[in-house]
């Protein structure tokens, strides 16, 4: 565990985070925006578009996660921030300064590498001191800051060890200490937890989050793990094919996904094909289970066309008392997977579509429904979201 001292209140990021989702980088500069990515594109080999005209602003002290499947451009974007890759188009600003064509060694950012990239020929203390020595600080200052950084990550007693003598988790901490000891404007984290085993990874998620709150630095992390992103970030930037699919607070992406892609990448979502009956005044009427439902209409929804209705498995409830809710679905249980605190039912709707249902087993009165039994499910219309088109 990181020996986190009693620190000051979590830095600005958390308390302001509701404002952040509206930040889009404009043409002008703003000091509170520590990173501005303005219309940046990166094309490999003349044809492979890794990052496509992407614009993003990151506020000072924020913990932003670039999330997406492999090949979505998130790592390329991070490497462009570090200066290892240069954009083919667009501008990157750091604290208001254009750093687009600046080499990595003249940028005030530091990176925690996926494989840690510790210098094998140097001791732990020398690894951490490396960046400070490049700044030509005096030796007592370097010694003090190295000791501080190492005790912050709980490795004060390992200063004279070589990296190969440490465990994976300890190496991770050295990499972290080496990157934060320079107090960079932005800390870049490239899949920092992917090399750790599951238990350690979960513990480190919390530690990293605490470290962020304690240091008040801006963190930009790349991951393909949605749980990691949900747990740690102030804001998630979900990417697809080099573009931003959606960005916002974790809860916003989870509860109000902008597209079927977002809905199914973050958490699990049932996507049911429905027919749009009518659209008027921003409201749409769709048919579900033989009943008409009125829901807020997304842009591009056309009456008579197909649409997708999304609902999270845990938002579906068992209809037990016979009262009829606003929306009802009757299904047949195909399979039940027992998870201890919950059971996930795989059900078939009347039209043959698959529906996942999570039932909390907190009340012992609820029995796990038997295979083949018919269930009446209900849900709140506010938990439903409509997507135009039937493209998942």
């Amino acid at each position, binding site marked *: 565990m990181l020996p986190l001292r009693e620190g000051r209140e979590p830095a600005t990021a958390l308390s302001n985070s509701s404002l952040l989702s509206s930040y889009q980088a404009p043409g002008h500069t703003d000091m509170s925006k520590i990173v501005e990515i303005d219309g940046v594109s990166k094309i490999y080999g003349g044809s492979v578009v890794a990052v496509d005209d992407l614009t993003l602003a990151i506020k000072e002290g924020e913990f932003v996660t670039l999330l997406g499947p492999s090949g979505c451009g998130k790592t390329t974007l991070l490497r462009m921030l*570090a*200066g*290892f890759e240069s954009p083919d188009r667009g501008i990157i600003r750091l604290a208001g300064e254009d750093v687009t064509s600046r*080499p*990595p*060694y*003249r940028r005030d*950012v*530091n*990176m925690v*590498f996926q*494989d840690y*990239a*510790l*210098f*094998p*020929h140097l001791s732990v203390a020398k690894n951490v001191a*490396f*960046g400070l020595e*490049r*700044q030509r600080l005096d030796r007592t200052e370097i010694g003090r800051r190295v000791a501080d950084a190492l005790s912050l990550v709980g490795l004060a007693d390992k200063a004279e060890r*070589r990296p*190969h003598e440490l465990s994976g988790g300890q190496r991770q901490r050295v990499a972290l200490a*080496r*990157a934060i000891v*320079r107090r960079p404007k932005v800390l870049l984290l490239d899949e920092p937890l992917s090399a750790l085993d599951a238990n350690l990874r979960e513990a480190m998620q919390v530690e990293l989050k605490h470290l962020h709150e304690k240091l008040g630095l801006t963190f930009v992390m790349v991951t393909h793990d949605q749980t990691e992103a949900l747990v740690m970030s102030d804001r998630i930037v979900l990417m697809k094919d080099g573009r931003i699919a959606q960005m916002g607070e974790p809860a916003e992406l989870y509860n109000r996904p902008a597209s079927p892609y977002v809905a199914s990448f973050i958490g699990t979502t049932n996507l049911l094909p429905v027919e749009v009956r009518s659209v008027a005044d921003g409201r749409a009427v769709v048919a579900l289970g033989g009943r008409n439902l009125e829901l807020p209409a997304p842009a591009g929804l056309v009456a008579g066309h197909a649409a997708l209705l999304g609902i999270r498995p845990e938002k579906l409830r068992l209809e037990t008392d016979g009262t009829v809710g606003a929306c009802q679905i009757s299904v047949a249980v195909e399979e039940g997977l027992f998870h201890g605190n919950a059971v996930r039912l795989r059900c078939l709707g009347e039209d043959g579509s698959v529906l996942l249902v999570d039932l909390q087993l907190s009340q012992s009165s609820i029995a796990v429904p038997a295979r083949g039994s018919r269930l009446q499910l209900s849900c709140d219309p506010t938990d439903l979201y409509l997507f135009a088109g039937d493209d998942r």
Partner: protein
Amino acid sequence: MSFARTSALDRIGTGTFTLVILCVLSFLYVPIVILVVFSFNDSSSLTWPLGGFTWGWYEKLFSNRDLLRAIGNSFYVATFATILTLLVGVPAAFALDRLDFVGKRVFRRLVLLPLVLPGIITGISMLNLFKLMGIGLSLETVVLGHATALISIVVTQVYARLQRLNRRLEEAAADLGAKPWETMFLVVLPNIKSALIGSALLSFTLSFDEIPVTFFLTGRDNTLPMYIWSTMRRGITPEINAVGTLIVLASLLLIVVSVILLRDEQER
């Protein structure tokens, strides 16, 4: 059960194995032991039985001007051939590893050629070249001749090590504010140290006892192997044994030094 038999077989196996190792070791080292023993033998003929103990051959050696000059020449040639090889070979290895240039594959194959080419061919061809260019033969032409043959060793060793080097280390160094030259001297070179020291030692040794190329390219100066070879016409003298013993001693020292220098890296 079969435990007793297994252990009996084990003992036989271990015994045979030990015997084989002893044979190999004696095959390798008995000639050297004989060389060392005869260098202290109080008789000018190399025959059994041994006479008394003497330092005489060493005293003779250190008063033999020609021999000492030959040893000096050999050190001069080996040292400068090694330096020249490193100066040309290391950048060439970096170019092969990092740069993309036309004819890179051909270059990678061609650089190996001097290593497999017989020394006589290298010697004759370079002799022709120097004659054409009107360069007189001297120890310096020997240095050039050795360096061409040895560059392939440095290039292949250093290139192989660079291929295994994690490029993220260099990115990490740059990320931490190291300018390119700082990354080179503080991160890259320390991490390919073993290949640098190894190929330097190998180059030095190979240059030190090289005869064919030296034979063609030297002027009036003799190197140690050339001197030994030329005195052989008058038969082996115990004096040569003394030189040999000193060289064995120096080689042992070199091995110890290189083990100490490379110890850090082997721990990984």
